[in-house]
């Protein structure tokens, strides 16, 4: 099975680096963090660590473009040559995984996956095939028509990853997606996510306060405190 074709077509090997240049996020004139300079190469996983409430999730929201208008963002967020800072979230092509799997309860597992597939892939059959292949790849054969509510936590988490990958992102943001899983499942799920990140050369930013996540990612580790006064 060619996972690269399922999720990325031919573009997997041509991913760009994700760069944060002097990034600063503030709320009501008080800086959450400032002067953040980070470069993430394709396939690299950079881990940002810090305690709860230090602004990790705000950092990811700033990169994804989903930060509420109460915050202000300055500095550069670049994917290759593209400056993302002024773009709406849907035009950034940055996939994101949250603490919750956020599967749409009004859709079946297959429909959730097809929701992620770009509209440029036309035809019901082609879209069904892609979603089915993705499920096979994740060891979820036969789950296409299942209600997400009937899946286990680990299965739901994998479907959420597949949905994001099927949208063909150019970078990936991980907002503590492992924190709600039990210890055994967490390790297996980490490996599942990181394997896909490497296979698709996605520059990836992981925020966590779990040192095990950081070690498994096997990439640079940055403490959030370094960017705070």
């Amino acid at each position, binding site marked *: 099975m060619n996972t690269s074709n399922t999720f990325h077509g031919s573009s997997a090997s041509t991913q760009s680096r994700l760069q944060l240049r002097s990034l600063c996020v503030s709320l009501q004139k008080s800086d959450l963090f400032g002067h953040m300079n980070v470069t993430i190469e394709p396939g690299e996983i950079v881990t940002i660590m810090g305690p709860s409430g230090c602004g990790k999730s705000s950092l990811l929201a700033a990169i994804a473009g989903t930060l509420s*208008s109460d915050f202000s963002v300055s500095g550069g967020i670049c994917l290759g040559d593209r400056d993302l800072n002024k773009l709406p979230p849907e035009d950034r092509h940055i996939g994101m995984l*949250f603490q919750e799997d956020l599967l749409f309860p009004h859709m079946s597992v297959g429909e959730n996956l097809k929701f992620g597939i770009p509209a440029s892939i036309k035809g019901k059959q082609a879209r069904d095939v892609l979603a089915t292949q993705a499920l096979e790849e994740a060891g979820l054969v036969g789950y296409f028509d299942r209600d997400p509510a009937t899946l286990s936590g680990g299965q739901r988490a994998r479907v959420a990853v597949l949905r994001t990958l099927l949208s063909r992102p150019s970078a990936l943001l991980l907002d503590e997606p492992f924190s709600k899983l039990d210890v055994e499942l967490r390790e297996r799920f980490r490996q599942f996510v990181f394997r896909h990140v490497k296979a698709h050369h996605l520059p990836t930013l992981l925020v966590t306060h779990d040192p095990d996540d950081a070690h498994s990612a096997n990439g640079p580790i940055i403490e959030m405190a370094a960017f705070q006064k």
Partner: protein
Amino acid sequence: MNLLKSLPQRLFSLRYMPVLTLLVFLLPVLAGLISSILPAFGYFPAIGNSDFSAIAWRELLAHPALPSAVVTTITTGFIATVVSLMLAATFVAAWHGSKTFLNARRILAPILAIPHSALAIGLAFLIAPSGWIVRAISPWATHWDRPPDVAIIHDPYGLSLILALAIKETPYFILMILAALDQSQSEQRLKLARTLGYKPVAAWMKAVQPNIYKQIRLPIFAVLAFSLSVVDISLILGPTTPPPLSVLVLRWFYDPDLSTRFLAAAGAILQFIIVIGAIGFWYAAEQGISRFARIWLTLGGREFFERPIRLVSKVAMRTLTGLFVGSLIVIVLWSVTRRWRFPDFLPSVWSFQSWNNNIYNLLGSSTTTLVVGLASSAIATVLVVACLENEKRRGKYAGSGALWLVYLPLMIPQISFLFGVQILSIKAQIDSSWISMIWTHLLFVLPYVFLSLSDPYRTQDDRYVKLALSLGASPAKAFWKVRLPMLLRPLLFAFAIGFAVSVAQYLPTLFAGGGRFSTLTTEAVNLSASGNRRVIAVYALLQSVLPLLIFAFAMWVPNYVYRNRRSLKGM
């Protein structure tokens, strides 16, 4: 002795409160409906008829005004509901999270607090041929020095009626959508859909709307039922030749010829059948649409008329808001007008004469409005708190079935059961009394108080009460000293909503008051046919001010009480 001692405690046990509450407000509704059905089939011993027959139905179906009245009822009711729902949904979809949205959200509560009839009166002053809008552009743009001869209000198609309903129901739908959004993970799902490449409207329509629709279905049915059977707005703005069915039925009920009661009862039941049929039709259409929508959801299209929807929804919301604000201003102007000739933009002579001339009537109807509103809201709040506290203590939450029961009085047309309620209250010898007035208002106040209070009450962190109990406080002390003070803000807000609902009631006051009681709303609506804009404006203004004052009070009290408590401080 022990048994006697514990009897009051047993009688007032929280465990019986849900049953008591349902009896208080559901029993009269259902009994009233049945009591309306019997006269529709000829059984009305009070006026000497104890034989069942279908004469009233034959008379009703042969009535020359019926076909047009039914068509007007169905078209205006459906169009108003669909337009309001679409405007609310597209506005939230396109503008959710923006400054435009935050500004619009601020005006929701005042719009909802103003009674329908007051808004309708203001709108009539605004859009009539001699209204403020025409005055604003005359004569310089129109060359009109007298009002044009066009039927804008009471227009045969019910357009002004639809407009008034849309101004009131769109904010209600927005509020319901926002409440549904808060309850689910909608915000995060919206963000997720955006990171998957979906534009704002498409993201909302595909990732959020299908989920929250189930939560707003009952409010939609309530609005549909209301729009199909509304009386007061129809009297002020609706078509007259013939009027919508509800107005026709009301006329028959108040016909001096007692035999028309049979016809009226049959009409009231027909109104009920139309509403039930409309709700059934809506549900069937919804099922059909959702089948097609499922396919559309997964086709991957990232856009859904983004620009047109943003533009149209913004313009429409601004127009509705402008009409609302304009309606209020023009009411204030007319209430202090002595002379305001067409086409002057402002009155030429100002005066409080209308207030002075009507001071005794105003005081009387204001007092009745206040007493009935405050009493019914207070009783409703106590009953709702007792039910919700019972849920908390028993750890069992009422399911969706209970929610249907709460919505039931809002989905049955008022005119279909109030006649029956009136018959029952005559039998119980409480007709035209304060008890029947307050009780009848309670039927409509209670559901809204419940809907407003249930979420904050159910989601309150129980650990505070548990902590109080672990510190040795009795359950009663924990309730009075911990639970209620922490819920002060939503409690008062629910009370204010209940009061606003009570002030707005026209038909219940008419039926329960039996002509002995008049509130600001009944006076304003009855005067609306008189053409004396100055006097109508005075009543409409007071009718609007009272609920706003109670809302202001409900906001001020918690802010004052908790001025030194940051986490309990509100806006």
